């Protein structure tokens, strides 16, 4: 079969974004101990309360066990082999783009996300994070006029300690789960975004993460706060260079929306998935949670997951305020020996809360792709409404697609619906395309893109293009 040939061609495709930027690093010694936590805190010149928070988390983490319930298999992670802090050496604060290390600029250009281009042409403010320290923040001034704070997390700790104190760990408590607790102890940097009352952020905020030094676990922490009536669309995208040893990534993202506020969070994740034998690749254990704290607020997660050897990620929404809305749209693609266990949690606490989950899983090669989600209607969630749809597409007979939804309903007026289907690309569809003169590869691209369209259409313009490209790179034509 020619489609088999295409499959092998695609599965043997090299990772296009695999290169290493040579920047002098300021790294901590390998391993994790209380001293390392203190070292990170001291390195970042943090106040006492921040160090206390880290130490509290670290001590809790020591008592916790790594979760094993996910449908994932990987060798045990040796936390003493990881470098927990690495920052590009920086001599002074930068005020313009020209002062940024030219090596860095090149890296971004290779990725097609050059700061200049982004800044001048698209009007997107980019907070570029290279190995844990924000190198450059653009548009801060423009945003500053509106009262919007968009800066690195460490900067926020220095300049806006009150905001950080009151909102950090609200959605993801320091002892939430194994990986979130680890993050709380050793997080190095991240982004902080604060939209004041009644402000609609005029541009789409975006952070590009890159993992750069070999053996560096990256521990990002993002906090987005939308005050009453505020709106922001936030984008996060990731590419990482090729590595042979596994790298650990345990990030935390928190979103808090107050009354009438709305946050739209979009992710394209394309980290190094390991080679076609399943060696190397990023281990991605992320805790993402939003709280719709006020009435009529809304949080929407959109994600396109194509990378990482292991993805463990459940963007969740706690619907506390009455009439609040939670959304989750996801496309997860796994190929070769990739494993993904991803999904969403919708916790309905307030009245008339609504949530939607649309998840599309695509598995190829020897990969395993699982949807795992929880929908909970508490006693007070009168008229709560959830609709979940989880579809899986299997490309090849060596891969697996799994669905593990959990539904718990304690309210009689709540309505929860869950639907899931698993199938392969139908021969009829392929045949139809082919007899119209479309070759197999394009036909499959067409069908897969159509299959994922429901989710892709939720992405902001710039991301939708990148996501479609990614889908093509990862899968085009890979049908057995």
């Amino acid at each position, binding site marked *: 079969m020619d489609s088999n040939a295409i499959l092998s061609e695609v599965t043997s495709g090299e990772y296009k974004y695999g290169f290493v930027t040579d920047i002098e690093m300021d790294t901590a010694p390998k391993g994790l101990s209380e001293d390392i936590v203190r070292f990170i805190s001291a390195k970042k010149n943090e106040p006492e309360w921040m160090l206390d928070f880290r130490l509290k988390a670290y001590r809790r983490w020591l008592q916790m066990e790594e979760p094993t319930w996910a*449908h994932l298999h990987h060798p045990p992670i040796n936390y003493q082999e990881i470098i927990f802090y690495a920052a590009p050496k920086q001599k002074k604060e930068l005020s313009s783009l020209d002062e940024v290390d030219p090596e860095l600029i090149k890296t971004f250009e290779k990725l097609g996300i050059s700061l200049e281009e982004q800044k001048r042409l698209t009007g997107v403010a980019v907070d570029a994070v290279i190995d844990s320290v924000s190198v450059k923040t653009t548009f801060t001034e423009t945003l500053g006029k509106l009262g919007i704070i968009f800066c690195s997390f460490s900067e926020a700790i220095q300049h806006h300690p009150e905001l950080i104190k009151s909102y950090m760990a609200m959605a993801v408590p320091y002892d939430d789960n194994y990986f979130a607790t680890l993050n709380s102890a050793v997080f190095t940097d991240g982004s902080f975004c604060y939209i004041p009352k009644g402000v609609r952020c005029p541009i789409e905020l975006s952070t590009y993460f890159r993992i750069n030094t070999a053996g560096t676990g990256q521990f990002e922490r993002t906090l987005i706060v939308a005050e009453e009536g505020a709106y922001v669309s936030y984008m996060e995208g990731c590419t990482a260079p090729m590595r042979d040893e596994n790298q650990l990534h345990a990030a935390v993202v928190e979103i808090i929306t107050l009354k009438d506020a709305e946050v739209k969070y979009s992710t394209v994740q394309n980290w190094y998935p390991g080679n076609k034998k399943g060696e190397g690749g990023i281990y991605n254990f992320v805790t993402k949670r939003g709280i719709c704290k006020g009435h009529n607020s809304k949080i929407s997660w959109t994600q396109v997951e194509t990378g990482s050897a292991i993805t463990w990620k459940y963007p969740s929404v706690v619907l506390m305020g009455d009439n609040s809305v939670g959304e989750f749209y996801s496309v997860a693609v796994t190929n070769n020996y990739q494993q993904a266990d991803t999904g969403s949690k919708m916790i309905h606490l307030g009245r008339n809360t609504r949530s939607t989950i649309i998840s599309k899983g695509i598995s190829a090669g020897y990969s395993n792709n699982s949807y795992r989600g929880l929908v909970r209607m508490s006693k007070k969630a009168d008229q709560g409404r959830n609709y979940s749809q989880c579809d899986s597409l*299997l490309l*090849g007979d060596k891969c697996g697609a799994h669905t593990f*939804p959990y539904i718990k*309903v*304690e309210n009689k007026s*709540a*309505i*929860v619906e869950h639907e899931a289907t698993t199938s392969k690309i139908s021969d009829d569809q392929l045949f139809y395309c082919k007899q119209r003169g479309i070759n197999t590869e394009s036909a499959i691209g067409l069908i897969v893109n159509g299959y994922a369209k429901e989710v892709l259409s939720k992405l902001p313009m710039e991301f939708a293009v990148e996501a479609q490209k990614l889908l093509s790179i990862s899968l085009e034509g890979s049908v057995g």
Partner: protein
Amino acid sequence: MKNDIIISEISLKEKLIHHFEENITTLTADETPLFKEIRLKAMDTFMKKGFPHTKLEDWRSTNLSKSINKEYTLQLGNPEVKLDVSTIFKCDIHHLDTFLVTLYNGWFLGNEDITILKDGTIIGSFSKACVLYPDLVEAHFSKYASIENNSINALNAAFALDGVFIYVPDNVTVSKTIQIVNIINTEDNLFIQPRNLVILGKNSKLQLVHCDHSIEHKYTFINSVTEIVIGEGSTVDHYKLQNKDNDSTQITSTYFNQAANSTLTSNVITLNGGLIRNNLYVKMEGKGCTANMNGVFLIDKDQHVDNFLLVEHCNTDSVSHQLYKGILDDQSMGVFTGHILVKKDAQRTNAFQNNKNILLTDKATMHTQPHLEIYADDVKCSHGATVGQLDQEALFYMRSRGIRENTSRMLLMYAFAAEVINKIQIVPLRKQIDELVYRRLKGELSDCDQCILDCNANRQISFDIDLSRL
């Protein structure tokens, strides 16, 4: 408080272990080496694992600690039953001639320990079968209900002494429906482990009705394991009817093992019960198997019903359908876990699953976990799960037609359950269950202590509709 429970949990486990060690000679007397080995191995597993707890994924919504935290009596010998069971209990399905088998407090009860029908079908006591047909029993016993990772199976295997044994030879259609009635009637708080084994040869057919009743309101703990082996091209219709009192705890594990081209229909109807956990394992080993699994439960008060299903598609061209429905009232809790596992190379599998539930109060809780795990690509699998309430528009429509609110609700619930009931293929049984469900919805059923199936034999189902308003 919490510590108390844990201490007594340990104490029941330890009591059982102590009991086992003390009576090991009685338990294994007259047993073949294989049985003895299984018993010891099973006890070993139980000692290691203990009772399932909510930290285990498969038991996360069903907490046994309340049931474990009670005093139970363990029986080792078959107590002499002099009385005629029919004087205290009658379980007839009207207009249906069945071959009745009674398990009285877990022990086989009958004039003959083993009956051999004209067509060669063997029906009788499990313990007797172990002695008379050791080869047949040993070939299948504990082959499907694994004792290695499942402490509930292990507990049963360690203590099992009696139950029902059925063997249907090749090419035999058992003419009468076989009805197994489990009756619990005792002054003691019993802890029993019935063990059943059903073996079908090739191209045979069997209809099996399994009824669970309790007469005295006592704390009982029943942990039964049934293994049903379905030979090539054979058909099994299995019906399980549960009507237990609110103090009972019942864990039933039924293992179906299907050879090529076999057909299974399983219906589980739960009308009442304290804590019920039904484990249903369907393993489709051969090609071209069909399995239909249906279930409905109607619960109220503090009742807890957990239906756990694992359907394994191991070979090509098999089809499975699951339809489970539940109506929950008061503070009751329902759990549904349906796991479809399509193994590698089980191509052209079709597996469908549907779970629908209605909550009548804000205090009732429903957990549903419809899981799909698929390792083959040429498959069609789907599942759907809903939790909701009665359709308000339908209610309004009926009320606008002069039907009282209560009656409209009844009608809607009755219709909701009817989708499952209508799948019952034995017509007299369907009619009877239909009637039982109707009476259960009206709240009449739990008032009946005695023979719940025998009264009002030919009464028509009627709804209280105010005709003058029409």
